[in-house]
């Protein structure tokens, strides 16, 4: 099972509704996020510019660095669904996993002293039709959820339809093998492996261009 998000960046308009839906669903404190939607760009010089948004959350890596470094086994992969999760009972808030994750998508909740991140709304996994809150609310139909190992899943079909040239993954310097796939065609913007925008307009910044 390779449950993850596939996001169509040709559609995403950076409205941040998925961020709010995530925060309401998961009861996330002010200042904490499981996902952010930074703008990559605009790149180029006015008026010859392009831009896309990069909704960003746990990439559901095949070789997760977080699990590898977690000293207590709190970070683990759910066998049935393949989702990378954190066992609240076992987490000691040591933040070691933050060093294992190259994508800064894990945060220590200072109130509970437990590390949190996107679980693909695992609390909904028992639902007849498991759909994460971000996917459910998305205002452009950009975010898809499903099992990339199943060729008949929505995500697999979307990836196939987009074609390999338009499918991208976050740079993987650490060999963690991220699962999430981003669809972006050059008609919208050129994909950037290591976008400067992520630093300047990045996930730690409070505002995103819209």
């Amino acid at each position, binding site marked *: 099972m390779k449950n993850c998000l596939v996001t*169509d960046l*040709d*559609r995403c*308009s*950076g*409205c*941040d*509704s998925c*961020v*709010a*839906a995530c*925060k*309401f*669903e998961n009861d996330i404190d*002010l*200042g904490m996020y499981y996902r952010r939607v930074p703008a990559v*760009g*605009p*790149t*180029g*010089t*006015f*008026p010859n*510019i*392009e*831009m*896309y*948004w990069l909704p960003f959350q746990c990439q559901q890596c095949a070789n997760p660095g977080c699990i590898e470094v977690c000293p207590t086994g709190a970070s683990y992969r759910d066998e049935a669904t393949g989702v990378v999760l954190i066992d609240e009972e076992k987490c000691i808030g040591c933040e070691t996993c933050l060093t294992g994750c190259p994508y800064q998508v894990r945060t220590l909740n200072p109130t509970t002293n437990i590390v949190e991140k996107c679980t693909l709304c695992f609390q909904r996994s*028992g*639902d*007849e039709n498991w759909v994460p809150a971000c996917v*459910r*609310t*998305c*205002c*452009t*139909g*950009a975010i898809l959820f499903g099992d990339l190992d199943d060729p008949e899943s929505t995500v697999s079909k979307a990836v196939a339809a987009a074609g390999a040239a338009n499918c991208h993954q976050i740079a993987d310097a650490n060999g963690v093998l991220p699962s999430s796939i981003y669809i972006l065609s050059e008609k*919208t*913007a050129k994909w950037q492996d290591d976008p400067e925008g992520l630093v*300047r307009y990045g996930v730690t910044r*409070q*505002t*995103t*261009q*819209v």
Partner: protein
Amino acid sequence: MVHTEVTRRSFIQASVLLGAATAVGASLSGCMKEEAAVATVDSSDGLVKIKTACHGCIQVCPAIAYLKDGVVVRLEGDLDAPVSRGSLCIKGLNQIHTMYSPRRVLHPLKRAGERGENKWEVISWDDAIEEAASHIVDAIEKYGPYSFFSSVGGGGAYSFIEAMTLPMAMGSPTVFEPGCAQCYLPRWSMSKLFYGGNDQSIADNAVQEIFRVGDDNKAEVVIVWGAQPSVSETAESGRGMAELRAAGVKTVVVDPNFSPDAAKADVWLPVRPGTDTGLILSWYRYIIENKLYNEQFTKYWTNMPFLIDPDTKLPVLASELFPAFKQTTPENTPAYICYDIKTNAVAPFEYSAPEDSAVDPEIFWTGDFNGKTYKTAGQIYKEQAEPWTLEYTAENCWLEADKIEAAIRLYTHADDDGTVAGIANGVASDMTESASQVPLGLMGLDSIMGYINTPGCTMTQYGPGNQPTKRPVTYHNGFGGMFSDMYGIGAVIGMSDAENEARINNAEAFPQQKLANQLLVDRLGMKDHKGLYAWCHSHIPTVREAIATGEPFKPRVWFDMSGNKLAMLGNAKSWYDVFPEVDYVIGQYPMLTSFHVEAADLVFPLREWLEEPMVNMCQLNTQWLQNETVHIGETVSHGIPCVQVTKKVAEKLGGTLPGLVPGLLGSATEAEVKASVAATLQAPSWEELIADTDKYVPLVTPEDVYFGYHQQETVVDDGLPAGFATESRKIEVYCQILLKLARTGYPFCYPTPQEACEDYSPICEYIEPAESPVGDTEYPFVLTSGRVPYFHHGTMRHAPFSRELFPTAEIRINPASAQELGVSHMDWVKVTSRRGEVHARAYLTEGVNPHTVWMERFWNPECFDASQTNPTAGWRECNVNVLTKNSAPFNEVYGSYTNRGFTVKIEKSTKPANIWVEPEEFAPFLPTEEMKAEAQTKDVF
């Protein structure tokens, strides 16, 4: 039901003095409680699921609310909604916080300190109604009915009709809304004058055809002009545009700011703010020069071939040039003059189906007849556009010639075999002196291209009644002519003069015709800006002037029906300065804003959208229910306070009001509101509606009734094609009715005319913004504004999740300009115009021209949080409307002032006191346990 002995409105007798606004949300014991509404329990998670619709913006997307123990804990879009398709944006999601915000006002409040001190006393509804009514009665008795005025607008309340009709009941002509002339009225009204049809607004539910779902969608190219649907109506037309783009529809976006829709466009034209008319004229020039227009459609369905009298500027009637002309068409059918290519002669041009026409009219012609030189309307337009070459336009409008050309070629299918396109416009032009000129020009483009009443085109008529059986007419006074038929005012376009006279000279049917007509004539600012009659609104700067000077009369008692007027009105300080001149100010809103703090003497508590039953916007052929999902405190639906106050005023005046009857249109009780909602959705009663919502919601109009095409060709009762509901039955690209409007007030001021003013231009003409950046060395940047997806109008600045993501005002500056200013990304800067100064954080982006800056409006409710040691009302710090220009020149037809496209200077500054920017700072805006524990309460009225 929990029964109680207490009467509905008298249970709070004890006055409670409260020091700070943050405490007003707290309820008092004694509210009439009610058990939660009956609804289905979703078995999987134990949540109660209620079908409703979001009112986080004007678009009203269908939604599902999930409740736990009577508290709404989750909101989702309704997957059955045809356009939003289950999407729900951050504005809608915010309601979970704003519904239970500690900022909520749950009881009537009376000012308990000086204006500005933010001290309030909770009073009973009985006392509040008495207070309001007695101040209105006192003013009417002492100063006359014109001392009363109302206003609305700002987001989060919906009292459009009530605000418009309340002064009518009181016998006053004065009402305004910061939107109106600055938002949508110019585009809406102009479309009625232009062709009696739907306008091109991509918001406001106007453009629907392109969002038609399924294989039926024939859209090929959409021009988004001065609109950002992905931001303004994110889940609805934003979703619609995303679906269109995904389906391969090409788009052109005209916007000074690199909006999400611009980022996805095939061609982006970052026009210099306020110069859109020049760009529009360049499209005319290119299309005419390259013969890209639809010749057949332009000849026979527009008035472009009509000869125009150089003296009157009006099209010449056949009977004027040919006294012996005997028309072959039925009586009252108009006949004009053209230059006939078949006979090479000036000839009568009778109204007929194109294939039945006796003449082949020339569109572009100049020549003499009987010693006078005439031009066709087409020729006049061609000459108007003549200077606007691609190169000149590029230079003047800060664009690139090849991109303008690429956009026009996409729009006209110059390089492919497509057949349709359509322009969808937005609020940008309404906020400039060009407010009437831009829609006039843009509708004209779609008309000469023949992109009318055709699948895939924005200017296509829809809805019940779109398919004509009788000769179509346009009513102009009030929506669907409601005021025309109530009071006997206004001419009906499409009827002959004789028919209009017969209709209006009916003293028995219209006993108040004289008073109604007088209220039109006396309305402030009407002489010069007669287009405002379309929504019966006054000219805002003239109202302000009247308050300040007492000339020609002094408005003294103000009933405002929504929002933060200080964040919404242009040149906010000029309004703050006249507040002392207003004797009494009544407000109503779900929370206190800067306006209430600075001006209000009395505040009525309103329901949030989760509490208020309503049917508003449709999605295509479906109508949805905004449900009464919950209800706390003593809040009421938006229309109720003014109806209750009016009843009390009538009682005090001996049973009769000084104004029009029926005058105020609104519901007095929640039961009436609910009955009206049920009737709209064709349910037998409110109770049956909510007991079986799925049976009645959505209300679907059959597709074959709702959608229709080529309506102008349908032969109607007089044996001729329906044409369009204008004087000429053609699309009046040369908008001849505007000349009559300027000269007499026709068709609004009728039967008694209004004093003349300067002629309005019947075609699009270029207007250089009054504060032009060209040559302005003191204020070198041109500022324009727009929305961000986190807020709608002045709403949600107290929504913590929106605020942590977009904490405070930002100004987008090109990095090259910022470098010259010594400003870095996220530095605070001071932005100064000739009106005032505000602060914002600099957002450096290549997405704006180096000479353009872009800002969203803002106000800061945290400035009067209880935690502040030196509280302010939060409207001076970051509010773009401190900078905007509400002085002449105004748009000639609608009196619109300049919210966009004026000049500013920028300097580095520091964060103003009281402004919050860190996520944790917004914690005082989070719902409190106390608010969530508020009991469900019964209807107050």
